[in-house]
């Protein structure tokens, strides 16, 4: 198992747990579900929600990698690969646009906002993690 797999499985675990919890909440709902009382457990999210924590870490990695400090790690190669870094900056900058588009797409096909955020958010976080690790691996000359 390489480092990126560990990050991805944390996101996957949180996403699947979250989807399961959304199913439970929807079924227990008094107006749209079967109105089953005492079925939801708020402590469940605190115990098993790895998505929020790992997403924050990955966004922090994204910011660190695309920032000037992150790029200056490879100062010897900066002149040679300056166009590559520009492309990386554009790619990282496009994630906010992609998030909005994906969420709107999910809501247009009838998904609830929570589910849309969960599914497309986790997909985007996984993509960011893979790209960040590709960048880091190319700089560190090892597959992380």
């Amino acid at each position, binding site marked *: *198992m*390489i480092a990126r*797999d560990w990050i*991805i*499985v944390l996101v*996957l*675990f*949180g996403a*699947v*747990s979250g989807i*399961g*919890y959304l*199913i*439970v909440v929807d*079924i*227990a709902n008094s107006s749209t579900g*079967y109105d*089953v009382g*005492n*079925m939801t*457990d708020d402590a*469940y999210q605190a115990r*098993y929600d790895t998505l929020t924590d790992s997403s924050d870490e990955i966004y922090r990695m994204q910011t660190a990698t695309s920032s000037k400090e992150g790029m200056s790690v490879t100062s010897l190669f900066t002149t040679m690969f300056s166009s590559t870094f520009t492309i990386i900056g554009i790619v990282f900058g496009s994630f906010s646009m992609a998030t909005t588009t994906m969420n709107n797409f999910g809501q247009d096909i009838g998904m609830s906002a929570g589910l849309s955020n969960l599914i497309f958010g986790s997909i985007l976080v996984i993509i960011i993690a893979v790209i960040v690790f590709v960048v880091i691996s190319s700089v560190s000359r090892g597959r992380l």
Partner: protein
Amino acid sequence: MAPNLITNATNNVTGMYTLFQYVNEVAPNFFILVLFGLLVILFVIFRSRADSNSKAFAASSFFIMILSILFRTMGFIDNKWMYISITVMAGAVVWLHLDSSPS
């Protein structure tokens, strides 16, 4: 006329739901055994079709998760067993990913 039964859940059995209620009362935790047994049976069935343990376990745990939520909705099992099945499903997805990713 439906037979009267000595039970607090329902006065008499009139269909599948009331029969299950009766079974759950006279044999507590019966449906947990049903879930666990189905998990094993589905895993063995899917394993004969799938080419890896992780795929078979992910498929079988998904069915068990859905079934456990339905059982909880009908009041046959406790909350914790439903949440355990959701967590097992999440773990199965993790296993599936690790199994399919190159090492």
